[in-house]
């Protein structure tokens, strides 16, 4: 297992290099004058020579390849530069917002698992009954529901006395007050819960006719034990893969969810940064997004190896 982890960790390095290179080329190609972003209104009043000076200072006159290696150096030192608009280090912006995004993602994942897996199991056990049909119809609706629309509906009906019940706060972070987390988590988790329910159902159905289940029944084990120890455990392997793939979707979903609920995460930072062309912030968030993405893939692979010994010992 240690060997497996080590090998997977080494594989991260080339992936990171490719991502850094792509992001650098993208930032290089990004239109818009960075000087104008830095100076804002003052830009119009400044003479050519000063602008040249600033360009020199920011290193914009250096050749492409020099800037590329400087960028790689910065990445190795984890130096993400300073926001051109907020005038504070990008790492501070991310340091404040990343934990809040992660918190929201954890909430969404919790909702997705709590709803998705039981729904999938029930649906598979009661295949072709009305419960199955109803659950799968809900899953299809859940997949089609736009995150922002669901958020607006919740805000309308669950936070306003006028239209429904005022159960939850409308929006905001609430300094860690968990009631502020409930609606955003529900909204973020709905889509994933529908996906998980569908995968769990089909995986349960696939495993159902396996010989080891017949053996377990023949041994006279109780149905409940067969379901949990033999049936579900084997059926969960593809579910884990799908969850791993979908966590990235949770990250992008949180961009939208944060915008609706005014949640102070990365999404609330990257959208204005794009609109104002604040390149260091955009790059910083994308780099952290990519890092999270790699980390999630790594964790998925490790869990996968943990539940499926064939991978651990193979190759």
């Amino acid at each position, binding site marked *: 297992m240690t060997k497996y982890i080590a090998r997977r960790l080494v594989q991260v390095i080339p992936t990171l290099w490719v991502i850094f290179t792509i992001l650098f080329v993208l930032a290089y190609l*990004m239109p818009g004058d960075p000087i104008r972003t830095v100076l804002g209104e003052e830009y119009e009043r400044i003479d050519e020579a000063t602008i040249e000076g600033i360009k020199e200072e920011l290193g914009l006159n250096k050749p492409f390849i020099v800037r590329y290696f400087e960028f790689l150096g910065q990445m190795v030192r984890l130096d993400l530069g300073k926001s051109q608009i907020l005038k504070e280090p990008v790492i501070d912006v991310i340091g404040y917002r990343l934990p809040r995004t992660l918190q929201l993602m954890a909430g969404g994942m919790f909702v997705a698992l709590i709803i998705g897996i039981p729904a999938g199991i029930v649906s598979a056990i009661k295949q072709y009954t009305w419960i199955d049909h109803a659950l799968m119809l809900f899953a299809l609706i859940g997949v089609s529901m*736009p995150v*922002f629309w669901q958020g607006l*509906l919740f805000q*309308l009906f669950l936070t306003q006395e006028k239209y429904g019940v005022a159960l939850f706060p409308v929006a905001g972070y609430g300094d860690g007050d968990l009631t502020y987390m409930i609606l955003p988590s529900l909204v973020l988790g709905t889509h994933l819960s529908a996906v998980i329910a569908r995968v769990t159902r089909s995986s349960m159905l696939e495993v159902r006719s396996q010989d080891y289940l017949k053996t377990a029944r023949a041994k006279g084990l109780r149905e409940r034990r067969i379901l949990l120890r033999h049936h579900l455990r084997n059926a969960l392997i593809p579910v884990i893969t799908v969850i791993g793939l979908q966590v*990235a979707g949770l990250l992008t979903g949180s961009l939208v969810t944060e915008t609706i609920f005014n949640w102070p995460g990365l999404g609330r930072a*990257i*959208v204005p940064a794009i609109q104002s062309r604040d390149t260091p912030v955009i790059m910083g968030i994308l780099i952290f997004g990519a890092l999270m*993405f790699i980390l999630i893939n790594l964790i998925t692979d490790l869990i996968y190896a943990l539940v499926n010994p064939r991978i651990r010992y193979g190759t």
Partner: protein
Amino acid sequence: MATSAVNSEIVNLTETKRITNFQRFWRAFCRNRVALIGLMIVVVMIFAALFAPAIAPYDPIEPHYTSVLAAPSSEFLLGTDELGRDIFSRLLYGARISLVIGFVAQVVAISIGLALGMISGWYGGWVDDAIMRITDAFFAIPGLMFLIVFVAILEPSPVTIFAALGLIGWPSDARMMRSQVLAIKELEYVVAARAMGASALRIMVSHLLPNAIAPTIVLASLGIAGAILAESSLSFLGLGITIPNPSWGSMIDLGRNYTLTAWWYAIFPGAAIMLTVLGFNFVGDGLRDALDPTQYQ
């Protein structure tokens, strides 16, 4: 004379078989009530988009300053926005934008996907490896994230949106096409075509491509839903295309500020997106089940 009669009979036989195949598929599709509902939604949406000028009671960009943010009434069916523009009319015109974006993005995605999948499956070897690794990489990138980066670099315009959505959508088409090619490339009629000296391009177009039509339709139907959803999310974040005529996503983005005072502003465009996406997903799911040969018995 005799041979030609036999030939025509064979032709007839295959003709009838084709029809029954289609009928069988159609029957399976119709048995699925959810799929039929989806088809109805899609047809209604397409009609709404096509005949928007005839159906819309008002001009979508004409303001009515006397009835700003008016609640739904007989005068304004779904209410008005902050400039007094009729939301129902704007929704009808918005259907054009959303559907066109969905369809064009799918055409781009399918063209890229089928071409790459075919090359990958037909040539195999390192070409296959290279294309499949790229496909894996694109699969792994979350769609909305890619769209945001794309828009951050290139100014949002219809062309960049189509290109970006197409670039997100093609991997599933490529994988499907590749597996189709692998399944049939050693079959007699393909080998025969090769032996007769048909070029790779000709084999691809006239032998390999027709086999992929059915699964492509399924993927396209689901893909249109995804593209509409992705575009509206982008517009919702305020990063979408800005055009005089409203897209559904941008209507929600504007209306979001009025959720608590004028709920109809954002809720109705959201319902339109939801219904359309649901319709295409229902149809796609139904098609997949109906085209699944194991269901035919």
